């Protein structure tokens, strides 16, 4: 097996983008499926609310709101875990030998690794989101109430930097878990990858964050600060770019690094 060590951090993004461009259909189907599922759930909630409020003529009180909020959170978690099966599709593209993947394979990976993906998703995405929420949510309220925005931007930047470091530290757990099928081995291999290719890992995710995450946060902040619609349009555009390109690309990048950085594997690649 050839192991190609690259010093240029752009190479992983370049190869992954090429792979995504050639195989966009299964990933696009995944995003559309997630959107469709979200819309269905949204309309179900609206429908239940309508029946509760209009037909039974009852107030949507605190416990009901709490139940709805919990339901939305669980569903949001489910969608995030489902989208993380994109990582299985990315591994298919690189390691199946057939150089293609299909949307239905996402369900196969979900069925096989659902609880492991759930745990990894909580660690990889849950923690940075919680940190960002902790730093920025109170500031958002301050901004709405007319407070200075400089502080908000600083907290926003801190949240983003913590997210970047966290993603860089743990993203390779996904492909390792899919290949090795063992959570403990996946974390061990992830740290071996970091040990053997730290500059490549951190460099690649830095570019990824600069291209996909930073503009989204900048436009989100500008929209919030200036209440200006032109920024809002860019914010939405970057969020869509993140969903349709950034999400599958991050799994392809992680899988690409997993297969290309030389390190001691539990189960060697054939």
């Amino acid at each position, binding site marked *: *097996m*050839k*192991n*190609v060590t690259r010093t240029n951090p752009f190479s992983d993004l370049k*190869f992954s983008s090429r*792979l995504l461009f050639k195989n966009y259909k299964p990933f696009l189907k995944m995003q559309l499926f997630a959107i469709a599922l979200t819309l269905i759930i949204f309309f179900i909630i609206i429908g239940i609310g309508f029946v509760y409020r209009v037909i039974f003529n009852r107030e949507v009180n605190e416990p009901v709101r709490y139940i709805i909020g919990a339901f939305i959170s669980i569903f949001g978690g489910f969608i995030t875990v489902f989208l993380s099966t994109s990582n299985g599709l990315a591994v298919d*593209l*690189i*390691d*199946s*030998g*057939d*150089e*293609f993947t*299909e949307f239905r394979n996402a369900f196969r990976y979900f069925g096989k690794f659902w609880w492991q993906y759930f745990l990894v998703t909580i660690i990889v995405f849950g923690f940075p989101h919680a940190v960002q929420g902790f730093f920025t949510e109170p500031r958002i309220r301050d901004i709405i109430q007319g407070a200075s925005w400089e502080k908000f931007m600083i907290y926003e930047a801190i949240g983003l930097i913590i997210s970047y470091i966290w993603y860089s530290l743990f993203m390779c757990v996904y492909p390792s878990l899919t290949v090795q099928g063992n959570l403990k081995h996946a974390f061990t291999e992830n740290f071996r990858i970091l040990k053997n290719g730290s500059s490549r890992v951190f460099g690649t995710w830095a570019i990824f964050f600069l291209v996909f995450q930073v503009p989204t946060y900048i436009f989100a902040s500008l929209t919030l600060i200036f209440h200006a619609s032109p920024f809002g349009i860019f914010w939405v555009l970057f969020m869509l770019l993140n969903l349709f390109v950034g999400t599958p690309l991050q799994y392809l990048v992680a899988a*690409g690094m997993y*297969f*290309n950085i030389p390190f001691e594997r539990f189960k060697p*690649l*054939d």
Partner: protein
Amino acid sequence: MATEKTSTPSMDSNSVTIRDSIIITDPEIARVLLHEDKKKIVSLLIKNREMTIQQLSIDTQINPGTIKRYIDDLQLHNIVFLSKTTRSEYNIKMKYYCAIAKKFLINIHISGEN
């Protein structure tokens, strides 16, 4: 299936011999081989010696998933085989498939005798 002529063995992984020609006498195999798209795939594999699913997909304009299913069926009926597996510069695994003969002849007799 009956063998007519054989050429020198050249397959590495499974030491499969590529024959000059093969006479198909089994109607089930003939049915598989006469499928329009599968015939196209086998023809391309004979012409180009060995190809990946992606290459076959580009040449036939058929979805790679469909090609994969056809290849599985052709493998099941011993018409094609996995000739080698390599890795690209970016460590992408690539499976190459090859036809087991350079020519397939179908010879099926239908008569009133039992």
